[in-house]
């Protein structure tokens, strides 16, 4: 006999196969007739996302349709996944703007630091999750794409209201 086999003294109700089977059948039948179905019919029904849901990015724009970004370089610095590529430019009046602003959504870990660090409230994460693509290149969002997206943006965590109530 093998050493250390655990032997349990079970009550009769547990060692009886027929009675256990019958109670199991009753259990499944209760679930069968119960109306509570948990399936969500996905394309028609969708989850209500939390206001703090961190999904794919959006770049907010000023009234004249330009990106709010001033190419300060804080977000590529803070980004732990190193997924933001920023090449700054400057116009005649000395205003800085991004020449290239790309986010590789494949590398992104959706931590939300870029949104937190942004002094202009330009780059945001979004309440959005349907972002499949046919190629890896499709996941590198350039400035045009980031400004064109319209989904609602993520709200930051508010220390005064930690549970978001």
């Amino acid at each position: 006999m093998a050493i250390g086999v655990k032997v349990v003294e079970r009550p009769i109700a547990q060692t009886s196969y027929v009675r256990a089977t019958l109670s199991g059948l009753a259990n499944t039948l209760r679930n069968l007739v119960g109306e509570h179905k948990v399936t969500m019919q996905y394309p028609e029904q969708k989850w209500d996302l939390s206001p703090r849901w961190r999904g794919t990015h959006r770049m907010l724009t000023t009234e004249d349709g330009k990106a709010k970004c001033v190419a300060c370089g804080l977000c590529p610095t803070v980004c732990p996944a190193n997924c933001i590529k920023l090449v700054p430019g400057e116009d005649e009046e000395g205003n800085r703007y991004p020449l290239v602003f790309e986010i590789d959504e494949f590398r992104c870990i959706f931590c939300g630091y870029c949104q937190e660090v942004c002094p202009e409230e330009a780059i945001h994460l979004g309440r959005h999750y349907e972002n499949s693509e046919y190629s890896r290149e499709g996941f590198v969002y350039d400035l045009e794409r980031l400004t064109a997206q319209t989904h609602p943006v993520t709200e930051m965590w508010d220390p005064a209201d930690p549970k978001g109530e």
Partner: protein
Amino acid sequence: MIFTVLATLQAVVDRQQPARFWPWLTITVVKLLLVFTVYMLGVAYLTLAERKISAWIQRRLGPNRVGPRGLFQPLADGLKNIMKEETMPAHVNKAIFVIAPMLSFIPALMVWAVIPFAAPWASRWGRIEMVLADVPIGFLYILAISSLGVYGIVLAGWSSNNKYALLGGLRSSAQMVSYEISLGMSLIPVLLLAGNVTLSAVVNQQAQFHMWNVLLLSVSFVTFLISSFAETNRLPFDLPEAESELITGYHTEYSAMKFSLFFIAEYANMVTASALIATLFFGGWDIPFMSADNAGAVSGLLVLLSAVIFIAKVLFFLFFFIWVRWTLPRFRYDQLMSLGWKVLLPLAIAYIIIVASLILALDMAGMQRGFTYGLILFAVNAVLLFILFFVLDRGRIVSPAYRGASVVELAHLRGITAARARLTSQGGGVH
């Protein structure tokens, strides 16, 4: 020839006498087509029923995209399987590999030939039995044919040249051989009571007692039910295809329509098993609380009603098969064997002796076969079932490993367990 048909059509015949040759032939062909169509459609929709019921039991919705409420799902499945590429792995034994699905599919269909699905019809051409072939060997034929189905599975496992498939086939053959015996043994009490193996005789006997065999021979019903679960490879006896251990067992290497045939065969076997349970233990087409349907051949309306009753009974057992599948986990292999050989077989044999002596005693006492006779049988069965379920069923049925240990060994093991627990609680483990 056509004149012969017309002549027989016009002839006035005794409606209780068997029909003459030409009407008989025509109606048999019609019955064949009808039964085959209904049967195959039923099998197709059974796959949908299984998916739906399993979903409901798990509080899901189940397939609901193809057609209204998912009703065309079987068509989509069939189309998919036909369009799919037939893979032929390089290492298989080709001839046997191709023939195995057919071998498992055909016996499942053949069994239906002898199952009576409605009351005999008193038509204008004479009495017409509502069974494809009312052969005198009756359920012996069913036992013979249904045990052929195992060849398909064993050969599939063998020809695949794959270790998992082979193990599945081996398990299947061992399981079928074990449970075939208790299946056959549980039918002997039915035979004793009916005195005849034809299924229509069994149905008539149940009508004569005004009581179904499930009450007259309850223990037989229980053993037959469990054995037929094992024979159809349904959970909790689906060891031949145990996904978690054997991938999918004997049909691991199969794809497309060849795989589909195994699948259809499983469901066809389920329908057959349900029809057998309904016929042997639940009165077949016998309409409950009504005696008009048992007066020999009956009118068309009653035939239809009895067919509906029969289908309802079969559907109930199909539901039961599915219901049990989504309730019970799979047996371990030693549990399977000990249940078959150490529980069901002795039980069935002991029950044969009890029923035989009881029938002999009652017949010698000069009692007429009828309702009172049935009540006595029922009382005995109730006592036996009580003993079986509430006294004998204590850890013996499915825990052979536990029961196999002697008292001394158990004490020893408990000592070791306790010592380990002590050591662990003191901070030192056993390494």
